[in-house]
């Protein structure tokens, strides 16, 4: 295989993984924040500062989304640690596993 092919192959893999995690997780996080505002009661105190009380259902759904983001961060940490110990993270099973290279 020539260098250009190898490059495009490697780069496209990095690009798609980067897009899913790098754009996807901030998006999920933003959705989690957005959900908190749906149907929330807000009022401004005399100083003009906004206070908001989200609905319980919003809180739950938002919490779920945040958990997705946290899972993404944990996978990131797993990759760092695994790489440092000469291992790699595989996604063959449903949950990511650290295995020997």
């Amino acid at each position: 295989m020539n260098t250009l092919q190898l490059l495009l192959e490697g780069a496209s893999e990095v690009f798609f993984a980067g897009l899913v995690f790098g754009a996807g997780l901030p998006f999920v996080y933003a959705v989690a924040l957005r959900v908190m505002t749906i149907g929330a009661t807000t009022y401004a105190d005399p100083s003009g500062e906004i206070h908001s009380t989200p609905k319980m259902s919003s809180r739950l759904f938002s919490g779920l989304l945040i958990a997705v983001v946290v899972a993404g961060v944990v996978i990131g940490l797993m990759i760092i640690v695994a790489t440092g110990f000469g291992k790699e993270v595989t996604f063959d099973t449903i949950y990511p596993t650290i295995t020997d290279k």
Partner: protein
Amino acid sequence: MDAANITLVLVIVTALAFDFTNGFHDTANAMAASISTGALKPKVAVGLSAVLNLVGAFLSVQVALTVTNAVINLQTKDGAPNPELLADGGEAVLLIILAGLAGGILWNLFTWLLGLPSSSSHALLGGLTGAGAAGLGWAGVKWNGDGSKLDGVVGKILLPSLISPVIAIVVAFTGCWLVHKVTESVMHRLEERYFRYGQVGSASLVSIAHGTNDAQKTMGVMTLALIASGHWTSTTAIPVWVKFSAATAIAAGTYLGGWRIIRTLGKGLVDITPRQGMSSDGSTAAVLLSASHLGFALSTTHVATGSVLGGGLGRGTPVRWSTAGRMVTAWATTFPIAALMGALMWWIGDSIGGAFGASVVFLLLAAFSTWIFRSSRREHVGADNVNDEWERAAEITSPAYEHAPVTHSKNGSGPPGPADDVADRDQVEPTETKTH
């Protein structure tokens, strides 16, 4: 102490010095966005990054002994120096490493003086390639891989540096665009601090990853020098003191904070909001870790810069293209100029010869570093002024100058929120505040 031992000591000190410059040169990659959006106070940011770099350096037990194999034929596949180079007690290998490190340091310091985020790994590998080419001849340079994987100067340096900023720009652009689409209707009800939390989280990941990757490179080079001079034999383990000293050097460098580069990346390129900052940092962390997972060599600097640019473009924030141009010039020139410096250093050391030659290389490096440091004192950039307005506002060419409000009251004229002390743009142009 014989000649080889003197050279070895100089190599070790120079390697730690390189590691130190590596630290402060790359603080910006992880923390520039968090500092400029006010997610973290400057001193807190570099402190956090330093601790995480230290943690990262110790998190890794893998030996990056074959670091020079990417670009020169100095070592065998298992990491030991090529036997034919060891005839003179390893002095030939030591001089190449010393000259290569010196070349890398010189370029790192020079770009730091100019406040340009250039790649430390390119500087290191460039310096080693130049010194290797000078010491081993052109045949000593590995230009390209054998077709089974990306390797050599072309496959590991040139091509990835062209493509990695593009990947980062697109990922950060997409992230930023999505985040704004989702939150724009409720902008005034969401506190910026939530986006800052996201930013700090991803910046922390970048710092740890930096510690594991970059500290390892210096540890590898130091261990190579020890093997070449006969002070170490294992190619699967590194001396404990090497690990401790390299980890400490990179963390200390990070804590010093390369304020000039942080300022350029955080303020000079594009002025971003916490929302954009979160998208940028998320992109940097994700692209770097994906690349590390997939075994694709990328420069942290190129990814971080691309992400900041993408985060800016995703919201139509004006970009100072002249700054971007200077950065791209620095990227393109890092490898070849570090190589030239490495070659020059090798030539000086080799012409004089022996431990005296190595000492002259070391003294030249020290003299140049002192000169750079003195020059840097003329225009102070530090934690106190890293976030000041970028004076060269005339460089902005894009007409739109949108920015996000920090906190609003219902009529939009309420008192500034707690974060306003850092979101200085809102103080400069309060009347332009609008809801997206």
